């Protein structure tokens, strides 16, 4: 299935990606699985998604845990803990 992935703040800078359309391999249907999939790209991706960095995820604008299920057409976003205000 195809989804949109967005990256913000430190992630966007390190990955040099702000957004991409992604065709997910079969079996990659949770946030945790997607993070593993992205980590497998190596280098900066590995560093960001292998668990050492605190990362938050949102699906369709709502904060979710890594167990959340991804559906076709979803907008999935990854970003560091927020620091506004």
């Amino acid at each position: 299935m195809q989804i949109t992935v967005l990256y913000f703040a430190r992630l966007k800078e390190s990955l040099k990606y702000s957004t991409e359309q992604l065709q997910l391999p079969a079996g990659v249907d949770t946030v945790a699985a997607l993070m593993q999939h992205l980590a497998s790209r190596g280098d900066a991706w590995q560093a960001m998604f292998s668990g050492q960095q605190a990362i938050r995820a949102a699906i369709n604008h709502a904060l979710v845990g890594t167990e959340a299920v991804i559906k076709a057409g979803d907008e999935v976003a990854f970003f560091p803990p927020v620091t506004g205000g």
Partner: protein
Amino acid sequence: MEVRVQLEDFDAGAEISRLRLARRDTGAVAAFIGQVRDINDGAEVSTLTLEHYPGMTEKALQAIVQQAATRWALHDALVVHRYGCLQAQDQIVLVVTTSPHRGDAFSACEFIMDYLKTEAPFWKKEASASGERWVEARSSDDSAKQRWQSQ
């Protein structure tokens, strides 16, 4: 209940007056303004750049304000939060709450700020003489939010 995420500065006095005068049965107005400090964690700050997640940020703020309106007797609430490149003493955020009584106005205003700090997708990057750095989230912000959950 209004939420605005904008590049431009805001007139805090005018916003506060507008909410205060909107209802003749409003007795209490609480307001909070956050501004850029020239020093953070001991380092001099020359600019602060705020990134956000258009679409999600507005929804997150709206959800926080709605939650406050469920918990306290509010007449109205306003959140204005800026993004983009700011300098020392620039205003970052304004929260205004109005209520018949002061306790509700105060609690709702502080609740909105505490939740905004941990749930609204904004990220700060500081620039100083020694370069740029992303501001780290504070554990004190998590504990400030958790206070409201045990009440």
